[in-house]
């Protein structure tokens, strides 16, 4: 499946997600809830739950590129629309979600982001 647009949000598949993970310019964020992340996540991904993003969306840098990840692609699609509503235009939705992820996963509290600014300190 090639990237396509749905409700104004570019949808990408697992192949394109893997490319984004190699691209230093793109910030890939896991937006699931804490308990889901700790159970299994893509190694290295920062976690900012959707339930927190709704209150801190203004802290995100608007000129950066983002890809959002959740369990099935549904929550990340809603959150991507929310990003756009708030002036964060360069956001893509990983449509497959963790259900379509086919490589290794990490468990535990590897990269929990408590302050959005920490995303931009490198290594996030």
């Amino acid at each position, binding site marked *: 499946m090639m990237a396509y647009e749905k409700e104004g949000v570019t949808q990408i598949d697992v192949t394109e997600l893997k490319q984004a993970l190699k691209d230093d310019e793109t910030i890939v964020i896991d937006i*699931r*809830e804490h*308990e*889901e992340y700790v159970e299994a996540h893509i190694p290295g991904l920062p976690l900012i*739950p*959707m*339930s927190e*993003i*709704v209150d801190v969306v203004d802290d995100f840098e608007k000129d950066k590129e983002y890809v959002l990840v*959740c*369990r*099935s*692609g*549904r*929550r990340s699609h*809603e*959150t991507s*629309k*929310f990003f756009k*509503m708030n002036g964060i235009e360069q956001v893509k939705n990983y449509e497959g979600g963790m259900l379509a992820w086919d490589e290794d996963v990490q468990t535990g509290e590897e990269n929990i982001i408590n302050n959005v600014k920490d995303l931009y300190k490198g290594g996030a």
Partner: protein
Amino acid sequence: MALSTEELSTVKPDYTVDGIGEVCPHTLNIALKALKKAKPGEIVMEVTDHSIATKTIPAAVKMNKIAEVLGIVSENGEYKIYLKKL
């Protein structure tokens, strides 16, 4: 305006959505679907046993500005999420 558990127990939902046994994305899909049908001021209540839905549904309706979260009643591992259509 969040209501207390006592106040919520007196609320008669206009739409009741059964999310028992469902997980994301379905718990979110059925809530949003019911809210699309509801008229402003009407109340949608989803009952679910998926605790994560108690965070994602409120976040989604707040993001989309489609409903106000009146509150969540938790009882015996089930959660009743009360939403008022805006």
